[in-house]
């Protein structure tokens, strides 16, 4: 009985769409131009026209499918994916998700208003069509939000990657000598990122020495110092030499009170001293030009 009602509602809606396709298409196209076209510059005129035609084609394909209510059907999936892609396109161009949602609601309203023009539709049919439309459009709005969230997530990942790049400015200051200024706080996750980047860079550049400059580290606790020692150890295991520079007096005091064993670690007062030490170990002599 329920299945019959659904089939009847979708048949009626298909007929209605076919009869009024010109009006419906024109109305949603005009609204599309207002929201996305013109000075908003989110979609071109042709893109909006194509979008409206394709939307109505996909909707008719869904209505003519075996079970229009089946949200796992290929027809429904196609409609969902269509909105998902459109949202991505609009969001990438700087559009707002609110506008897109309002536009989808406008489409739904246009279809409902089209019911008014058909005097043959009974109250019962109208009710079934309304329920059917609200079900479909709710799913489409969810698809739009999903696309919005995916896009946001992608942006966050990209920003995180950018932050990682800037947080680990490893520079090859001389052939085989890397410098890594550490600024801010070293927590477990950041240490892992720094360590990973540093070790890969050692392997890539075949670096003989790494000078880690702690001038920008304001304070240190037991966990951070432990991470630091781990980093030094990993560098040494790769076969490079690790030199720590720029340890402030308060950091030195903290390391002493934390009983951190720095016996296997080469330290120098400043970055320039660290570089000199690296050069000395590599047998490089840097001197003023004679005369």
């Amino acid at each position, binding site marked *: 009985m329920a299945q019959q009602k659904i089939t009847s509602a979708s048949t009626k809606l298909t007929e209605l769409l076919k009869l009024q396709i010109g009006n419906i298409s024109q109305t949603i196209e005009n609204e599309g131009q207002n929201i996305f076209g013109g000075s908003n510059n989110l979609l071109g005129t042709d893109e909006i026209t194509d979008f409206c035609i394709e939307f109505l084609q996909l909707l008719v394909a869904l209505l003519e499918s075996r079970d229009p209510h089946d949200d796992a059907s290929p027809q429904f999936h196609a409609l969902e994916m269509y909105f998902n892609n459109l949202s991505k396109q609009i969001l990438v161009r700087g559009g707002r998700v609110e506008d897109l949602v309002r536009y989808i609601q406008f489409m739904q309203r246009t279809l409902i208003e089209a019911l008014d023009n058909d005097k043959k539709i009974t109250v019962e049919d109208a009710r079934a069509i309304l329920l059917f439309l609200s079900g479909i459009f709710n799913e489409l709005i969810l698809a739009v939000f999903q696309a919005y969230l995916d896009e946001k997530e992608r942006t966050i990942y990209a920003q995180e990657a950018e932050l990682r790049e800037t947080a680990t400015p490893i520079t090859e200051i001389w052939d085989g000598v890397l410098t890594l200024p550490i600024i801010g706080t070293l927590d477990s996750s950041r240490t892992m990122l720094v360590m990973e980047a540093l*070790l890969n860079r050692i392997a890539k550049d*075949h*670096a*003989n020495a790494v000078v880690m400059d702690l001038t920008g580290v304001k304070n240190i606790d037991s966990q951070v110092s432990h991470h630091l020692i781990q980093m030094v150890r990993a*560098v040494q295991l*790769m076969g*490079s030499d690790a030199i720590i520079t720029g340890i402030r007096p308060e950091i030195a005091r903290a390391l002493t009170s934390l009983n951190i064993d720095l016996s296997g670690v080469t330290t120098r007062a400043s970055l320039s001293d660290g570089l000199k030490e690296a050069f000395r170990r590599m047998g490089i002599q840097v001197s003023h030009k004679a005369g």
Partner: protein
Amino acid sequence: MAILGLHLTQIGSGDFLLEPSRSLNIRDQGLLIEQIAERLQQARASCLYYDLSEQALIDPVYYAWLDALARAGQAVNVRMVCVHMQPTAAFALARFMRGTPQFETALDISGWQKTGQ
């Protein structure tokens, strides 16, 4: 005399290169160490380079094998230098290792050889 699971090649006067193969079974480490030490002694070796380029990860078991081999080397007056350690292996090893390892490390054989880390 071939040693199962590894290639031991003389690469200079007193220097040997050990390249472990996939079939290396470190559970037989007692026998392996004995055979390696014998070869090194016969050739009057002074340095053993252990190639870790194929070892993406070093776990405590593998570390114990390296440590035991390095100690055995010390007993027959042979320095052990691990070369080509992969970043992933160094990363993992640095996290669980306590103290100083018994072996030295270098980027490669021709690299900067150090004495004691």
